[in-house]
């Protein structure tokens, strides 16, 4: 395994589960009990109200991907598991962040924000609330850029993903 290629350490699984109470606990419990590490996990209903979709990023240094998939598949409420291949999937993450921004620094911050493709959500006397949707790596970079200004509060969603369209205009 190439340590310089972190995308191979983390694999994204899209898990379709029955929309029943306790399903998230079963999935999370399985990861804990089998000592599988999760990098991020996001869950939401799908277009079909009987099912939810969990996007989970697993750290395959803790366990082989094959084991993670097979153990997950044994959960009765898990209906389907798809692995999204790095490079063949579209991944997005949302970040909300409140950053210290005295008036003289605001233009600079907004410049970073524009380049990253984010939005200003609200302004305070000495602070701004921003949002950014993007590939997780871009969200990481933007977070690093903001840090010197002073991050007051930050919340990221964890990634969600879909397979790329083979013939996409992407």
């Amino acid at each position: 395994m190439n340590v310089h290629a972190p995308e191979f350490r983390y694999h994204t699984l899209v898990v379709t589960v029955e929309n029943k109470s306790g399903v998230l606990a079963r999935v999370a419990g399985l990861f804990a009990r089998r000592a599988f590490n999760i990098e991020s996990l996001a869950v939401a209903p799908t277009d079909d109200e009987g099912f939810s979709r969990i996007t989970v990023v697993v750290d395959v240094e803790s366990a082989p991907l094959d084991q993670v998939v097979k153990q997950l598949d044994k959960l009765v409420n898990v209906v389907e598991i798809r692995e999204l291949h790095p490079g063949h999937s579209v991944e997005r993450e949302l970040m909300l962040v409140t950053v210290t921004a005295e008036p003289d620094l605001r233009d600079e911050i907004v410049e970073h924000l524009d380049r990253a493709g984010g939005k200003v959500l609200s302004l305070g006397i000495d602070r701004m609330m921003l949002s950014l949707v993007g590939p997780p790596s871009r969200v990481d970079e933007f977070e690093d850029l903001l840090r010197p200004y002073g991050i007051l509060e930050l919340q990221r969603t964890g990634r969600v993903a879909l397979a790329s369209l083979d013939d996409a205009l992407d």
Partner: protein
Amino acid sequence: MTTERMDGGRALIRALEHEGVEVMFGLPGGAILPVYDPIIDSSIRHILVRHEQGAGHMAEGYAHATGRPGVAMVTSGPAATNIVTPLCDAYLDSVPMVVITGQVPYAAIGTDAFQECDTTGITQSITKHNFLVTDPQDIPRTIKEAFHIATTGRPGPVLVDIPKDIVDPTNPRSEMVWEDDVEMDLPGYRPQVEVDPEAIRAAAKLVRDAERPVLYVGGGILKARAAEVLRELAELTGIGVVTTLMARGAFPDSHELCLGMPGMHGNYTAVTAMQEADLLVALGARFDDRVTGRLEGFAPEARVVHVDIDPAELGKVRRPDVAVQGDVRVAIEALVAELSDGGTGEVDRSAWRSRISGWQERFPLAYEPWVPGDALKPQYVIEQLRDATPADTIVTSGVGQHQMWASQYWTFDYPYTWINSGGLGTMGFSIPAAIGAKVAYPERMVWAIDGDGCFQMTAQELVTAAVEDIPIKVALLNNSYLGMVRQWQEMFYEERYSEVFLSKEVPDYKMWAESMGCHAIRIDDPDEVDSAIAQANEVDDRPVVIDFRVAADEKVFPMVPSGKSNSELVVPEFQRDQPR
């Protein structure tokens, strides 16, 4: 289709009847009370236990013996937690079991109500699946799903948690309409039975080409009811068979191709044949650490064919060269057909066979013979019991030295005659498991081989046995110690014995057993063993306990010390100068 209005409690019992349940083990309490009322009018026999752990192990014993799911029913809170151990036991040994627990009324869930506990949360990781039912209309479907999940694919325990309000006829929330035909709704549950013919061909090729093959047989063979076809495979190929602790009896011990039990206390031939093999055909076995020893040193030259119905077992511990996912009986049938059609190969295995018989001659299972002045030998007791009981006797055991001696010195020639706790190693398993087996087969003899430590954990179920007319027999190998732990302290902790001595005086097992309604005998002298067993075998109107007062310093050999490779198997002292 018949439909009928009723309450959830009656529907629950009717759903169990529809599943063909003949017997259930349990103990009532507040939350499950409404379900106990319709039991009075039901065809199902209910066995009232003295502790809910007993109910769980009885259900397991019943399931082990019959292959049918065992059923237990208990109330909420402390009763649910009391049955956690059997659930975990059944989970690790893949035992089909359905446990029904009472729960506080749905509206009270989450309020820390009296005897509330998060039963589905607690049991999530030790059940194959569990359900919390919130609508009485869902009860018949859920019960059907629970039995389906428990008995198909890799079997296992399923728990159904039932809030009181949906089964209480005085509560309008319990009203439902019974329908005979309900559809299961399990979109994520599709166990695969069929096997890939490509994989079978690849497996057959490895079998044909192997010089030193071994059939490594696990408990899955019994779950799949594949003992007969396993024998066909062995006889067709002439390959030797090892049966793990969970598979004793799956292949006859007296068969010439039987190599015995592998593992930490396996016999020399079985352990060494696996270690030296160039092919292991793993059939419903899971490369448990008690079998492999230190994994890095395990069977270093062996290629592996691994057959299992649970895909997660394939490659979990040892990467197979050929993985066959599916039912092991279907797989063996396919392999037998393939090898019959395409031949079993031309490899000359006579050198391998003579190495095997050399080990069998030099390192038979044996213990230091008794000499006058010695205390009674536990191994001798098992041999005498073995020889004095019918061939179809069912043997259950607790966990410890007595369990290992029973697995070693009994001759298991029939499947489903050996019932023990392998994966979890649950002390106290033998007596309730024996009761479950005896309920299933009242006409057969059922002996529990127990230790004194184990006996003190679940002996009260002998009261259940006496009252419910379930005349099991208990051979108590009483060494006054937590013997297996004592053995480890003797061998690996410089004989520093910490908290392993029980007592030589108390309890008085004979008095205790008699007070529980059993016939009881105490034996110290080897000369009295046979007559005591004969006497016990005569008693059929109540349980029997024989308190065999055996040597405390006897050890289980061979032994692979924990963390060591199987090549470092320790044999008994008198075999140590034999060339390996």
